[in-house]
Each structure stands twice: as structure tokens, then as C-alpha cells.
């Protein structure tokens, strides 16, 4: 992965729900790192959840890395390419997956970035701010991983 192009690292989650805020914390840490090392070409974004307007946001990027907390049975972190999905209409929800955003981007704007998803394993989801101890360790692994990737 190179740093000369336009890279977007985009995390989503609710920092008021413990480890669901893993991605949001990762962006805070990356902002400090980018600033102190004067790294250019990387845009950092943090939000509650992905939504349809993000198809426009990613449309002019070369590389996009979505970051999400995960309660799935994965190792501490998991990095994988994102493929566009067919994006079924849900029963009722106002959020979208990375693959849905990518598919919408392709349909609406006729172009798309290389897209990846970095999942960070979380463990606790209560009404509290701050990460669990195990999630903090995974956050550090995710940071180390991304710093190597985008350098």
C-alpha cells in the first residue's frame, strides 16, 4: 500500500458503548500520529455509522479502509478486502455496510476505490465510555498494523 494517493481511513461506532467505539478511538490515535509525523495523503474520518452519503465520500479516493469493532469470532484484528454487495433493503435500519457503500458508489459515480475492512475484536458493549482492557490491546495491534500499511 502506498501513501502518495488519496487514502481514507473511516471508522464507525458508538463511543458511548464501550468497545463499539474501538474505531473512533483508533482515529483519534491516528490523528495524533499523522500530525506529529507530518504525514500527508491520508484523510481520517469517524462517525456513528455508515450511510448512503458515504458513497460520495469514498468516490474520489484511491484507497479506503473502513474500521469497525467486531463481536465476531476473529483473531484480535482482521483485515480483508471489501466486495460490493447487492444491498438488500432492510426491515428497518438507517445504517449500511462497507460492501453496500462500495456498491452504491459504483452505481452512482461509476468509479470506486480499493476498499478494505479492518475489524477489531471487542468484548464489552455497555453504556460506558472507554474500552475494555482486552480491547485496548487490540486497538494497539490495529494501530501498529495500519501505521505499517500506510507508511
Amino acid at each position, binding site marked *: 500500500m502506498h501513501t502518495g494517493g488519496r487514502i481514507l481511513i473511516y471508522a464507525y461506532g458508538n463511543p458511548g458503548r464501550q468497545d463499539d467505539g474501538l474505531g473512533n478511538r483508533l482515529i483519534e490515535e491516528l490523528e495524533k500520529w499523522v500530525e506529529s509525523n507530518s504525514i500527508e495523503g491520508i484523510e481520517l474520518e469517524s462517525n456513528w*455509522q455508515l450511510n*448512503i452519503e458515504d458513497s460520495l465520500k469514498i468516490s474520489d479516493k484511491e484507497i479506503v479502509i473502513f474500521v469497525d469493532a467486531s463481536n465476531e469470532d476473529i483473531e484480535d484484528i482482521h483485515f480483508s478486502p471489501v466486495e460490493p454487495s447487492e444491498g438488500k*433493503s*432492510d*426491515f428497518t435500519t438507517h445504517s449500511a455496510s462497507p460492501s453496500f457503500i462500495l456498491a452504491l458508489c459504483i452505481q452512482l459515480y461509476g468509479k470506486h476505490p480499493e476498499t478494505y475492512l479492518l475489524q477489531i475484536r471487542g468484548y464489552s458493549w455497555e453504556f460506558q465510555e472507554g474500552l475494555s482492557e482486552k480491547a485496548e490491546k487490540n486497538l494497539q495491534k490495529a494501530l501498529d498494523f495500519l501505521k505499517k500499511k500506510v507508511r
Partner: protein
Amino acid sequence: MGRKITIEPVTRVEGHGKVTIHLDDDGNVAQTRLHIVEFRGFERFVQGRPYWEMPVLVQRLCGICPVSHHLAAAKALDVIVGAGTGDGLTPTAEKMRRLMHYGQMFQSHSLHFFHLASPDLLFGIDADPAIRNVIGVALKNKELAVQGVMMRKFGQEIIQITAGKKIHGTGAIPGGINKHLTVEERDRFLKGPDPLNADKMIEWSLSALEFFKDYYKKNKDFIDNFSVFPSNFLSLVRKDGAMDLYHGVLRAVDPKGKKILDDVDYQDYLKYIDEEVRSWSYMKFPYLKAYGKKDGWYTVGPLARVNTADFIPTPLAQKEFEIFKKANKGKPSCISMHMHWARLIEILHSAEMIKQLLSDPDIVEGELVVKGSKHSEGIGLIEAPRGTLFHHYEINGKDQIIMANLIVSTTNNNQPMNEAVSYIAGNYMNKKREITEPMLNAVEVGIRAYDPCLSCATHAFGQMPLEISLYDSSDNLIDIKRK
């Protein structure tokens, strides 16, 4: 013994629901219930916290409508800090909050229409789910899909400049607001290049309404008969009867339009509204005390607001309101699918209000906060996108929250959603021994009209699959379908 069909959406979060349909021995629908798990732990969680934290803290409840919770909490705390009940704020504070709120309404309704409703209208509710989605809309009507994206983006950016940030906004504080707009911020939205300016949003809101009305002309029978049942309707209205989504008095009308509650100060809501607990549902059933549990339930949200208001105080939305009223012969509409029509009228009203507020000089200067003598209790109501939202707090002498009661819009719509599902099930599932895609789609479309918020507290993990289980008269599972 009858058969039982279960439709169960699955999410990773607390908010979820399922539909159970009980069939009698003849295969007819005997009883239908929508079960939604409501997370009420938040009310206990906030006890002991300083009251001034509430407008930020309550945003943890919901990643979908955090602005509504933010503002309802701030309105309740206005009362506690002695700043009055909505009319005591400085002009700048009230208008900034309104701008934030109409930005929220605009983006949330736009998202619902383009993302959830328009695929059903463009392709029909029986279309293959693989195309009946916003990506399918993009393929068939790219312009419509692009407009949906930009309208949502516009509303989100209005929220960001008024609330201060995307996540855990801090704009509204007890007694006021913590900032006004700069002239540059205002001009960006008022006079910015196309398409992200207020005039373009009004134009596109009108286009969306025309899209719906055109569809309605061609599909009137479906819209008018898909789900229709008598209901009371409840919302805030302005003192003079105008639609007001930010502040007002409580009004309720019955299915014939008779006012059964009017000019009620919402600080007294407990005198008029109670919540029933039913053994089969985690979510309570609110009702008007004077009319009892059986007859006092009501609908909230866009359809309720259009049914209760005497007029809409912006010119273009007022014209559409008159068309709506004429189509319903001046009476409240009890047609569930008219919720979409009402929602589109509110999108237009919100766009007009955003332009009006951005054009007001108070939005870029003026006092931000007022203070008064402290009270121990405060109640804040707001018309959230999905309907009336109640926040009620009591504090002790140490400024800590000792009681919190929240009635969210989806709870207020618990009974009408049950009625809608019951009506649809009766039409689609009598004498059916197999679960079909049209059955599932119809139930889904019926609930979706109410835009219930099931993913409170955090973002949903992926899709919400629907699962239907069919049981025979001995409660044996004979069919199961998932989508």
C-alpha cells in the same frame, strides 16, 4: 390448537422485533403481534449522573436519531435551570436549536424515503429483494438516488455546524446553545453552489413529492387499502394550531378529527398519558388515560402531525398540506401508507424552515444562554422524525439525576404498528399453509411505513434478516423462511 408463524429480525443490538401470527384451525389469522425489545436500562444508568451531562449522555442511546434525544434532554433541562419551557430561551438559542432539529428531520426523512420507501414504490413490494433496494433505485432512476444522497448529506452537515460535531454533539446546553453560526457557515448553506444549498433542497423536496403523487395516482387502490384502520393521533402543535416540530402543546384527534386532547402543557403529560404493560411484549403501550387502554392508544409521527395540525406555516408545504387534506376529505387519514406522503410534506417543510432560519440575523449573533432559579424536575418533548419523544428528569440537591423517564417515538407507535401488522396479516395470510415472499414483503412494508427505530444504542451489525416460522396446529414447525 392453531398454527403460529414467526417473523424474527435478528440484530446484534438490544433493539429487535419479531412478528407472531396465530392461525386458527381453519387457517385464518386469529391474532397477530409485533414484539419489539425495548432497551430501558438507560433510565437506570443515568441515575446519579450530573444533570448537565444529559444532552450529551443521551446520545449514547441511538446512533440514528441522537439529535432528537440531545434536544429533548436539553428542553427538559431548560426547565430545571429556570429557562422556561421552550419559549424562555434567547432568540439565537431557540433558532439554532430549531435549525439543528430541522436538519435532523430533513436528513432522517430523506434517508427513509430514498433508502427504504422508494425501492418499494419503484419496483413494487413483490419485486425481487435483490433489486428492491437503493442500489436498484440507482440503476433505474439514478437522478433520484443521487438526490437522496445529497439531501441526506445536506441535513447531516446542518447538524454538524449546529451541534458542533458529528458524534456526541454539544450544541444544546441547559438554558440555551453554546454557539451561533459564523456568516461563512450560514452562507455556505444558504447561498452555496449547487446542489448543497437550501433552494436546491426545496426544489428536490418538491420533486420527491411529485414522484410520490404520481405513484399514488397510478396505485391508489394499493396505497389506500394496503393497511387502514381507525386510530387516534397525537403530536405537538404550536399554540395557534400550526405544525411545529420543535415545540408546542399536546393535541390529539380521534379518527373523525375531533380534538380529544388540546392545548395541553406537556409538563403535565402524566395527567393525560399512561403506559400499559402487556405480558407478551417487552415494550410498553402508551395510551390517553381519559379514553382507557382499549380506546386511548394513538399514532405518532408524520401522519399524526399532518392529521393534528390546522396548517403548516411555510407556503409550499402548506399547499401540499391542502392537497393532502382534500384527498382525505378534511378528515384525518387512517391509511398507513399515507405516512410516506406526510413524511414527504415534512421534508419540504423542513427545507423551507432551514432556509427561513438561515436567513434570520439571529442565527449569526445574539445572546446564547439564559439562567433562572433552579427547579427539581423538568420535562422536554420534541417531535422527533418518528414521532413525539418524551424526556422527564428529576434531580436532587447535589444536581444529580434521581429519576429519568423516556418514552420514545417507536414506543408511542407500538399499538398502531401492531394494528398494521394485524391488518396486513389478515389480508395476506388467511388460508395459506406456506410462507410466501409476498407475505413477508407485505409485513415488512407495513412496519417500515412507521419507520420504527429498532437499532437503538449502537449501529446495527449488517443486515436484519427476516425469518418466518410456520407451526401446525400441534405447534410443530412445518415451514421456515429467511430473507
